[in-house]
């Protein structure tokens, strides 16, 4: 088992796997996004209260899911990278961050656009929106740490600490913001023990869009990871040329 993980964790092996998976992920992203948008914008009914503005939900809600999912992936990769010092885990966490930040930003902007027709204002300090806003700053902090440290392996481990501390704070932040203000959102309505309470014509585009986002994420993260490895190889080659390494010789 451990051997299998190391087999896959070898950057060379990653390269060949990534080359095969990226086109597949890209194609899935295009197809899923096509179907998802078709169902979201055309083949689903308008809401009897919100009208057509409900369609923003199909872009907004999966983006918010992705914001959480990407941060969780970062946290898992960070823990893996911190304990086993594995470059693939480090690079996965690093490459996920900007993508997660963009999904978070998308969730904030679409939430704000959705807020105008439903709440009558571009921004309401709704608890969920507020937690997502704070999550966005957690992403920025994590990215800034990577930017501030030149030594990649040190950056990976310090960023991992930042990521995990942020991750264990996410539920605390969520709890505090909920406490801070009773929400304007309805209670969770998709994942419930007694089954989803929204109509299946709305669920189809919601899940298609979520799958499309995941495919987009997979595609982008693999490309970004390949770039990162290429950059590191290049840096190693350049460094090898210019800087001699010292050793000790007795007199």
């Amino acid at each position, binding site marked *: 088992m451990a051997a299998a993980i190391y087999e896959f964790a070898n950057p060379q092996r990653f390269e060949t796997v990534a080359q095969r998976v990226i086109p597949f992920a890209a194609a899935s992203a295009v197809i899923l996004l096509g179907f998802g948008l078709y169902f979201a914008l055309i083949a689903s009914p308008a809401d009897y209260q919100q009208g057509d503005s409900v369609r923003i939900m199909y872009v907004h809600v999966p983006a918010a899911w992705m914001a959480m999912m990407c941060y969780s992936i970062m946290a898992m990769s960070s823990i893996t990278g911190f304990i086993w010092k594995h470059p693939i885990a480090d690079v996965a966490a690093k490459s996920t961050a900007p993508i997660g930040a963009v999904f978070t930003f998308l969730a904030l902007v679409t939430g704000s656009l959705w807020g105008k027709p439903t709440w009558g204002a571009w921004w309401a300090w709704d608890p969920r929106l507020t937690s997502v806003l704070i999550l966005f700053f957690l992403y920025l902090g994590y990215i800034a740490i990577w930017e501030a440290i030149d*030594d*990649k392996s*040190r950056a990976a481990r310090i960023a991992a600490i930042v990521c995990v501390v942020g991750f264990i704070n996410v539920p605390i932040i969520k709890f505090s913001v909920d406490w801070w203000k009773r929400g304007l959102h309805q209670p969770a309505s998709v994942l419930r023990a007694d089954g989803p309470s929204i109509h299946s014509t709305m669920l189809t585009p919601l899940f298609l869009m979520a799958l499309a986002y995941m495919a987009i994420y997979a595609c982008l993260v693999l490309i970004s990871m390949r770039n990162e490895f290429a950059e590191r190889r290049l840096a190693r080659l350049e*460094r090898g040329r210019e800087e001699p390494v*010292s*050793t*000790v010789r*007795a*007199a």
Partner: protein
Amino acid sequence: MNAPPKIPPEPAAGAGLIVRGLGAGRGGRPVLAGVDLDLEPGTATILRGPNGAGKSTLLRAMAGLVRPTSGLIAVRGGNGGLRENVVYIGHADAVKAALTVRENIDFWRSMYGARTSLAPEIAERMRLMNLLDQRAATLSAGQRRRLGFCRALVSGKPIWLLDEPTSGVDAGAVETIIREIETHCQMGGLVIVATHEPMALGNARTVFIEPAR
């Protein structure tokens, strides 16, 4: 003047240091590779090399402050590992300018917790007695360097790693420092001095740090 009660210096345990195939870096760039050293208790070693060759990196690695990228560093004999046996005094020598000489020494004493001489006696040995209650901010560069060196004396550690201990120090004070190093070696201690210029340390072995191959 009341002489402080004299507590005999803790006998330095016979701890040696072994370095095998050590590689270490600075800021993610490799600086050292394939370093092998065998250092016996009771000896002094001068580590010479130009600026930037990796003297400080090697000392910091041996002090357990820099994680080696390859190879190993081990203490032979003595009790415990690097942390229990090694004291490192770098360019930044941990002197707090706002504290007096005595307060600096007392702080280190309580940090290391070794049963060593008290601050006045340590200061006397480093010829800082008349400055005991002056703030470190008022010391000259050489006096400050000597104060930094006091940390080795109060640490109670058998292995001293000294980074340019005599830079900016006048000839008389250099002698004081050399005498302390020699005394420490006679008591079974082990001293490594990194310096970019020669140093008149009797019986010391000199090793050079230079580009590999």
